[in-house]
């Protein structure tokens, strides 16, 4: 019942790769991820691709389909022409691990650098009171499924590796906005923090992130622009300006709600005496790896067939062919064992 369609899929790893051509069966109602699964089951069992829920809820199967950042599970085959070639490539902004799988650890690092929710002091669990209308603004951003398509498409980092260190990206601007708009968050310098530490100033509101968001979060309009505007408000507010002039920085930083660059939201109260200020981490001191009676480690860590891993020159052959060796091999001692 299916028809054969032409697919081009990028295959390779960090060392490089190329587009490969496939003809695959496509049935009514299928999505691009189905076709990748069919390729795995029938032609290329080791084709690497992330996926989980297959329902647009987990944000794992991010890829670029005909150059557009999309979720594989949310791209219906019926959106292509019958004879259209579908080209699938990995996310361009992140380093390739293998085939369609990229190293998205950049995003997890930026997540750690975004200050977490600061619970209101003195409000016991169960006593949180918020109005629906107030939580809805933040709830829009909490719809985020962390597919990182916005991070991938953002031109600040897409072709500018050098901006990655200073720029957190749209995903973490909406996180900052979400907490800024959270009715009970105790930290009041989210906007300033986003400007000063997350690189929000790099964003020049081209709305590419909003366009690719599979959850249809209005990233630019509802998060980035309000965050930018309020930063501007505060910067040029005459009272704030005066405050800056007459107080020392440490007095300003010590004021309520502003914590400078410390991201720790609070000190969590633990459940044991240890977590309440006792010595960390356990009763035991640091332990080295255990050794056998012969003084060697149990599981040897240096038994790879080729010591030292692959050659940095990209050649996979070892030892090098003799015509490419530029040093003199030591003379082999005569073999007396026989």
């Amino acid at each position, binding site marked *: 019942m299916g028809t054969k369609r032409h697919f081009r899929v990028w295959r390779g790893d960090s060392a490089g790769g190329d587009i490969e051509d496939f003809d695959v069966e496509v*049935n009514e109602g299928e999505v691009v991820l189905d076709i990748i699964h069919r390729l795995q089951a029938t032609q290329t069992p*080791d084709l690497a691709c992330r996926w989980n829920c297959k329902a647009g809820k987990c944000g794992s199967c991010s890829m670029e389909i005909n150059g557009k950042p999309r979720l594989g599970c949310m791209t219906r085959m019926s959106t292509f022409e019958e004879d259209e070639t579908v080209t699938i490539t990995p996310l361009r902004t992140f380093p390739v*691990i293998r085939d369609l799988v990229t190293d998205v650890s950049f995003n997890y690092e930026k*997540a750690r650098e975004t200050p977490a929710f600061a*619970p209101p002091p003195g409000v016991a669990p169960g006593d949180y*009171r*918020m109005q629906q209308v107030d939580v809805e603004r933040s709830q829009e951003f909490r*719809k985020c499924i962390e597919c990182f398509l916005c991070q991938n498409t953002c031109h600040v980092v897409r072709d500018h590796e050098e901006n990655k260190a200073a720029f957190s990206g749209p995903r973490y601007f909406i996180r900052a906005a979400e907490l800024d708009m959270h009715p009970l968050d105790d930290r009041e310098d989210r906007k300033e923090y986003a400007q000063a530490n997350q690189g929000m100033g790099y964003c020049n509101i081209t709305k590419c992130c909003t366009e690719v968001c599979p959850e249809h979060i209005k990233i630019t309009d509802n998060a980035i622009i309000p965050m930018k505007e309020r930063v501007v408000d505060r910067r040029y507010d005459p009272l704030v300006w005066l405050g800056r002039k007459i107080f020392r920085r440490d007095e300003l930083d010590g004021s309520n709600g502003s914590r400078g660059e410390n991201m720790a939201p609070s000190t969590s109260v*633990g459940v044991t005496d240890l977590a309440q200020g006792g010595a*960390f981490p356990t009763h035991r001191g640091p332990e080295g790896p255990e050794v056998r009676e012969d003084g060697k480690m149990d599981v040897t860590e240096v038994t790879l067939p080729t010591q030292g891993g692959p050659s940095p020159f990209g050649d996979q052959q070892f030892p090098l062919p003799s015509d490419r060796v530029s040093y003199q091999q030591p003379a082999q001692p005569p073999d007396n064992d026989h």
Partner: protein
Amino acid sequence: MTTARIERHHYDVVVIGAGGAGLRAAIEARLAGKRTAIISKSLFGKAHTVMAEGGAAAAMGNVNSRDNWMVHFRDTMRGGKFLNNFRMAELHAKEAPERIWELETYGALFDRTKDGKISQRNFGGHEYPRLAHVGDRTGLELIRTLQQKIVSLQQEDFAETGNYDSRIRVFSETTITELLLDGNKVAGAFGYYRESGEFLLLEAPAVILATGGVGRSYKVTSNSWEYTGDGHALALRAGATLINMEFLQFHPTGMVWPPSVKGILVTESVRGDGGVLRNSDGKRFMFDYVPDVFRKQYADTEEEADRWYNDPDNNRRPPELLPRDEVARAINSEVKAGRGTKAGGVLLDVSTRMPAETITKRLPSMYHQFKELADVDITKEPMEVGPTCHYVMGGVEVEPDSAAAMGTVEGLFAAGEVSGGMHGSNRLGGNSLSDLLVFGKRAGEHAAAYTDSLAKRPKVATSDVESAVVTALAPLERQGGENPYTLQQDLQAVMGDLVGIIRRAGELTDALKRIQELKLRVAQVGAAGGRRYNPGWHLALDLRNMLIVSECTAKAALEREESRGGHTREDFPAMNPDWRLVNLVCSLDNSGDVHLERKPLPRMRDELIQLFERTELSKYLTEDELTQFDAIEGPKGDARVPGVRTDPSKTEAK
């Protein structure tokens, strides 16, 4: 030959699984001061918990103040057909509200009531509106909140030590293939990074299993690829036991069209908010399928059912909100009787029941799911739905208070779907998310306490590591071996066709025979390619777990000669009170085959059984048990728990 580099780590507690239960356990272990590792089979924050839509059940009484833990406990036991471990159901009902409130201090934003409290919604099997929710993406909120709490703890550690990973570290895209023991004590876990294929060895005295379920062994399932029963199999191989493995929940409403989304869930809140089920004749058929035990609580006319949505105190519930197993069986019967749709489902309709705006407001992700995945506008036309394999009630047999695994092993804990007993023969919707939190916390807490009780760290044996390496590399050394995808499809066919919703002795015997044949084939499975992010190799390794868990399910299903909850035998269609006294316990014998034995169910404490009326109990208990009940109940029922069986609960139970 088996030359392999192995990365070694030392931790106090290793949590396998990064869904709701795993993350909650890890938070607790870290708060208890333990160095904690979290093993995540996919990326951090992608766990299957995100798929939970309806909400988390907790008797907070925000919407109906009559609700309390005793009512919740009763609903849970009823839903599980009294096969639940009563202590787990009790702890769950008592502690769920605290666990939910705690999430708010981590930054969760649930939908609100008018007075600013957490809003609660109706759900199948729950007497009162009880599910804390966020639209229909509650699971996502839960996982994100826990994920962000872990980041927050890492930020605290960073402020103190200069290293985010100093006390809690997430190993993403990592699979554990083997638990390593020192005698009977857990000593560590061995696995591989999916990205690089490199091996790692985590030495730790305590391991918490939070690996979720087994749905990938079924053809039609709502579960993701991760659900290969890893935790179940790891526990078995480590000497722990599994219970209730015959009980699988088939969610009544999975999408059946288009084929690519077959199995994906349509949340029960579609029905809780007014959606109705119709067959191809347009008939609202659920009224024909109300079992006697539920007759008192469910409406028998469409008019009364429709009034219930706005006036639940004076009307009985619509039969669409019967527990999941009942609805799944009803749909199955309608389709078998030829009153289904072409794709083999029935129609679930909200479009004629409420205005389009209300639908998009109340069920936003459902609206988007159908619009974008199936090109169906649920505000204009009905959805096509049918049963899909959704949840396994069975799992690791645990000690209820500590979540410690039973059997011969020490230092092993289990929480969430991978553990068994809590839900009995059938889980109520919404009880899963709260189960994750309640028992995740308990597992983390008790695993931490266990490590303190040890005089010395258990030691990993070199030979065990070496054989784990050999086992893991074996498929790669059989490059020409059998295709793992074919084997998975064959297993899915066996389980779907022969150990599905409706079971028969002959088919189950046949299934067991075929599973033995598959075992031989899986021993010869090969994986083409190398170790770097090779899904074929990963699947080849997972197959071993899927098979052993499937064998448990088939064996237990053959043994239990009655129909109850998530286990329906065509040849034994009735519930049998004698079988309620029996748990089926699976363990591995020395040859690696599944050994099944019967074990009596723990007897419910007097004050708990007195929460029920005798008429209800008489449907579940044996004559002997009823005589015992009469003895504790006294001549005129004066030994009752205050405040429970007075008027409010009578109104509610009508």
